[in-house]
Every structure is written in C-alpha cells, then in structure tokens.
C-alpha cells in the first residue's frame, strides 16, 4: 500500500457539479504519490469535532505541479453535509494516499470502465494511464437518474465508446449499468474490466467478467466512503470484506489498506456482511454473542 501522509490541506475550491460537490485541496507532497484508485481520508470539523471518523473519498484528479487533489462527493450524512459547507481558504486535515491503486497492465490493452453514480470519480485518471500505455478505453456510466451521472462529457472526450444507463430512463439506456455489459465487452474486445461504485454493481460486473474469462478489478466504495466513515489509518478494522488470498485462504481484508481496489474474482460478494465459516479465524468466533467481543 501507499505510504500515507497527514497534512493540513488548504481548501482551494468548492463548487457544485451536478448532484455532487467538487472539492480541491492543496497539500504538499501528496499529489505526486497518488495513483488512480487511491483514497484520501478527510477529518471533518476541526480538532474539537464531535464527528470522529474520517470520511474517505477517491481522488478524482491529482496535480503534482499545483500540489492539488480533487475529490467529488455527495451529501449523504453528517460528515459530508459539513464538508459541503467548508470555506475556501480554510484547512482540512487529510491523510493520503491510502490503499492500493488499480493494477494497470504495462502494455496496450482494451479496457472497459464501468461505474455506478459518482463511482466514476477514479476512472478518468485510470483511463489516462491506460491510454498513456498505448491502450484504449470504453465506458459504461450508470446512475438512478440523469442528475446523478458523473463525468459523461469527460468520458466522451476520451473515447467514442461511451454507453450511459439510467434506471428511470432520463438519459441513455433505461436500466442498470450492467445491462449492456457483456455486449460492450465483446464490442471493444475488452481484455480487462474496471468497476467502481455501489456493491451490487461491483458484484454484477465481477460475475459477468469472470464468466467471460476476463480480468476484473473493482474499487469498493460502499464499505468505506458512503458516509459510513473509516479511521483512514487501517487500525479500526471496520471496513472489512471477505477476500480470497493468493494461498486460497479467505480473510477479512480492509478496504482502506488491502483495498480499495480488489481483483473482483477474489471478493466473496455474496458473503459480505457475514462471517463465512471458512474465513480465517471464524472457528474461534462465538457468533451468538452480542457486544464488542
């Protein structure tokens, strides 16, 4: 994982983008360390805040020349409501970069990038990286409605291969983001699929890609960044999900340290929210007990 730094970041810009907020932060020495898929953990409300957990966000853009990081977030709870209210010129305590970035092949590849809602945030930097290696990208961007899509114009600047889905049909194809998935994979001859967004999207994309024998990398957002908040350090152990290791043994992996980018075929999507009996250390658990034990 990346070696995170803690910084008092200057708030450079806060502006609305569709249903979301765009926040630009300036902090020394961080932008050059950030890769697509990395996370920044933001402390909300200053040193006396009654909101103790950091909020974790994918980095949208990192500009080493300007020393800036850009995040895009939706107001979902106490923490993000406070963040939507910060003043330009003030500071925020951040820890970044966190976690493991998207693995990228070191040669040309045709990649399909799939996102639900503003899960697309880390995918544009990823697209740049893939194109820099001589590869090409296609996008499927989905959301409940047109207002909650993010980055459609940016995707269209990068490639003509952009499909958009909305559940209410207010933009593009009516349906879930996974509806045109198999067809799109075939159309661009996808050698790899990257997905980011809510768990049901990641699970469906992983299943489809795996069944077509195509590598799939997923960036988990819900276990970490959906206003639940995490420590952003890796010690609180709250953001875990069951993942199969290289040795074939399943373990609870932390989204903020071992993730947020996981090989989709290794995540036990159906078992999230449970203690699978074969996960390492499950035998010692008395699952009928309540409380902290």
């Amino acid at each position, binding site marked *: 994982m990346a070696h995170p730094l803690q910084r008092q970041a200057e708030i450079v810009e806060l502006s609305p983008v569709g249903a979301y907020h765009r926040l630009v932060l300036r902090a020394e020495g961080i932008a050059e360390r950030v890769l697509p898929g990395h996370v920044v953990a933001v402390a909300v409300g200053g040193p006396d805040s009654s909101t*103790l*957990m950091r909020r974790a966000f994918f980095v949208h853009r990192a500009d080493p020349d300007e020393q800036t990081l850009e995040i895009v977030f939706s107001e979902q709870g106490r923490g993000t409501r406070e963040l939507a209210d910060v003043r330009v010129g003030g500071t925020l305590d951040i820890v970044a970069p966190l976690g493991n970035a998207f693995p990228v092949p070191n040669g040309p590849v045709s990649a399909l990038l799939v996102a639900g809602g503003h899960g697309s945030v880390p995918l544009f930097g990823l697209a740049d990286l893939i194109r820099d290696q001589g590869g090409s990208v296609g996008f499927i961007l989905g959301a409940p409605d047109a207002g909650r899509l993010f980055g459609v114009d940016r995707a269209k600047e990068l490639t003509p291969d952009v499909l958009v889905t909305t559940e209410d049909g207010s933009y593009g194809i009516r349906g879930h983001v996974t509806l045109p998935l198999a067809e799109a994979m075939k159309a661009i001859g996808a050698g790899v699929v990257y997905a980011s967004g809510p768990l049901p999207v990641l699970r469906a994309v992983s299943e489809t890609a795996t069944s077509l024998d195509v590598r799939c990398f997923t960036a988990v957002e819900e276990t970490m960044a959906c206003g639940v908040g995490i420590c952003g350090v890796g010690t609180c152990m709250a953001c875990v*999900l069951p993942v199969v290791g290289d040795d074939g043994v399943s373990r*609870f992996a932390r989204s903020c340290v071992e993730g947020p980018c996981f090989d989709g075929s290794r995540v036990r999507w159906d078992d999230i929210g449970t203690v699978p009996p074969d996960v*390492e250390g499950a035998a010692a658990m008395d699952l009928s007990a309540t409380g902290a034990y």
Partner: protein
Amino acid sequence: MTDATTFVAPLDAGSVDMTAPFGGGGTLPNPVTTASGCAGYGRELAKFQPLAELGSITTRTITPQPRSGRATPRMAETPSGLLNGIGLPGVGIGHFVENELSWLAERGARVVVSIAGERVDEFAECAQQLSNSPAVVGLEVNLACPDADNQGLAFAGNPATAHDVIQAVREVADPALPVYAKLSPDVASITDIAKACVRAGADGLSMINTPLGMVIDTDTLRPRLSTTTGGLSGPAIRPVAVRCVYEVHAAMRAGEITTVPITGMGGIRTGLDALEFVLAGASGVAVGTAVFHDPGAPLRVLAELREALAARGFAKLTDAVGHAHP
C-alpha cells in the same frame, strides 16, 4: 477576601520530568500509551510517529487462536463517540509472537500486550507464551470477554471471575512483567472489581474498557451493528472514565486497596484531557479512539500534557497524580 485561583510559576515544558510509574515498581519514560484495539500491532501507526517515543504501545487484544472478528457493519458513529462490535480480530498468539513482536522490537517500541480468552486457561496460555519476548514490558488483561464457563458473562463484571483470571495470569506470567487488569465501567462498584484484581496480584489497573451501548437504524428499523450491542468509546465516555479512575484512586488513598499504578483511558483527545485523568489518579494515559481522527494524536497528547503540566507549575508528572483529591 479569598481568590479561588491558584497562582503558580509556569515552568519550561522541556524541564518537566515525565517519567511514569509502571506496575511492579518499574517506570516508563513517559505516561502515554495507545488504547488496545486502536493502534493495531503498530504497523499502521508507525507511519505517523516513531513508536519508540511513546511511553509504550498497547497492542490489539490477542487470543490463543486467530479470530476473524464479527460480521459487518462493525462500527457506528455516535455523537463524540464510536460504537464498535469489531469482535477482537487477531492473528493468534503464536503468529503474534513470531511476526509482530519482532517487528515492534526492531523499532525500539515498548509493548504492552493485551491478552484475552474465553476461559481462564486461555488467558494463562497467552501470558505464558509472552515470557522472555523481546520488546514486551507488560501485559494487559482484557477482562471484558465473555466467560464461556459462566453463561457468557464478562469476566470483568464479577470480582470473583476477575480475580481468578488475574491470579492465573500472574502465576504463569514472566515475573519481570507487570500484569494490568483492564476494567469495565458496566458494574455496580468498580472499586470492588479493582480490589479483587489487586488482591489477585494485579500490578496495575487500566481504566476503562468501553461501556456497552446500542444504536438503532431508524430507516432499517434494526440495530446498526451486526452484534446488536457494542462498546462505546471516544470523548462521549470521558466523564465516566474520569469518575472511575477517581473512585479507585480514592479507595487506594483510603487504604481500602493496595496502591498500584492506574492507566487512565476513555476519550482522551488532548493534553488537557490526559491531565484530567492524571489529576484523578492515573499515572499513565492511553489514547484510543482519537487515533482514528488524528493518527498522530498519541505523541501530540504527550507534548500537550507536558506543556499543561509546566503551565501549572508541576515539575514532575508524579506531582500531579491524584492532585484533584481533597
């Protein structure tokens, strides 16, 4: 006319002697440690501060066998606090001794190892395996675990069960290692539990473990944690923790309990928070949940406590211990 304000000559912070009494007659270079469960095994925290500069690091509770921890959701944010049902995930004592302790030793950390089990002999097994281990300076016995032989009630809830665990650990533990009993506030009389632990041979007390709490999700209409209830931590519980330390220290001053050092914890976020615990009677302080907000908090709290002692004219940390008592 009397003035309630006491005027003291402030001292230079650098001159304050932060040497902290530690159980068994020993000392640590300073009173600050991490609260068990909030600092992992140190690897993550080491990225934000040199572990050797802390008085000690208290590691996540370790048990004889590896534990996966509980199902998610494991944590809920509460006003100025956190409710957790993490479930003591851990690698098991064997792996811990082999891999984690050696890593900590290489960094010069002084380690207090938090141990637990579901039966008295499981606590003892952990203690035994920690004899002659590098870097270990003490054991902290997490008595908040359910006692499998007593209907799953916490060892910490009853003077007799707390006594038996501490006695068993003290019997087999390396005599050079002080044994601390970590007490829960969810009891009728914390001084009764403290007394039983000290009588059983505890060299120190850690106070407090998390009180039990609960959050219900008003959208799903169900408990927020998979474990239904969980342990509450953070500044929300600080007054409860300060009260517990004060009561037990008062009982020691009154001669009802043999005096042993107390490590105070529960919502410490600043040096002044730590000072409250010291004034109540703690000679050690642990930073826990604050780490999740500010990973550099332990060393910051140490610096702030030093400043706060100097500003109040205390030349030594020990001069302030229990100062709030009449």
